[in-house]
């Protein structure tokens, strides 16, 4: 892993179009500004990893899982007044 020391206000360039700016340091917290092209996904790692794991767990769903549950949650469209 590359380790760099930076001061507040200084930046790090990653490739040609990603810049990370150290905005503020307070005790154990660092505030970063990240400039990246629109297609680059930037997330707090722990949130991103939780979403990724949730997606993987969700992908296990099978048709049979909905038996019974389907009935619990939905409204029969013929019984509701809204559809028309």
């Amino acid at each position, binding site marked *: 892993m590359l380790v760099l020391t930076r001061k507040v206000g200084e930046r790090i360039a990653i490739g040609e179009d990603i810049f990370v700016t150290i905005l503020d340091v307070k005790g154990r917290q660092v505030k970063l500004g990240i400039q990246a092209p*629109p*297609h680059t*996904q930037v*997330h*707090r790692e722990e*949130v*991103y990893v*939780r*979403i*990724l*794991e*949730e*997606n*993987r*767990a*969700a*992908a*296990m*769903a*099978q*048709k049979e*899982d*909905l038996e019974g*549950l*389907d009935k*619990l*949650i*939905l*409204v*029969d*469209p013929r*019984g*509701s*007044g*809204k*559809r028309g």
Partner: protein
Amino acid sequence: MILETTRFGKIELDDKDAIVFPDGIPGFPEARRFVLLQHSPQSPFHWLQNLEDGALAFLVIDPLLVDEDYLGSIPEEELRELGIGQVGEAAVLSIVRVHREARKVTANLLAPLLINPKTRRGKQVILMGSRYEMRHDLTALSTDSEAEVREKPSFAPQG
């Protein structure tokens, strides 16, 4: 094209019905193209079937059925990135997880799939700082007061 799937057998689809996630979906970076299949005519659930892998499908639900103000939480820059001019033009889907042991289903309202219906492109976005949860319990709604939920018009499928 004909797609061989594990859940639905062989299905015939039109290539132009594909919804493309250019960056994939977190956890499935190779999964780019999907089609939306209805679970059953009366069901609020759909399946987002992947075209690259017949075994991969996500169970999804329209989050507006859970909260009709949901679109208000989508950040403008996410809309802009997908070329969606106004939030009302966006399509959103929430991935549903089935917790078999606990016999419950939850919807990921924290990270919806945002889709531009015109370009048929989408991405999973994270609504940081919103009040929405990654595991919004859908079953709690019904077991508390099934009768009441059944009469709620907002739960009717949208056409």
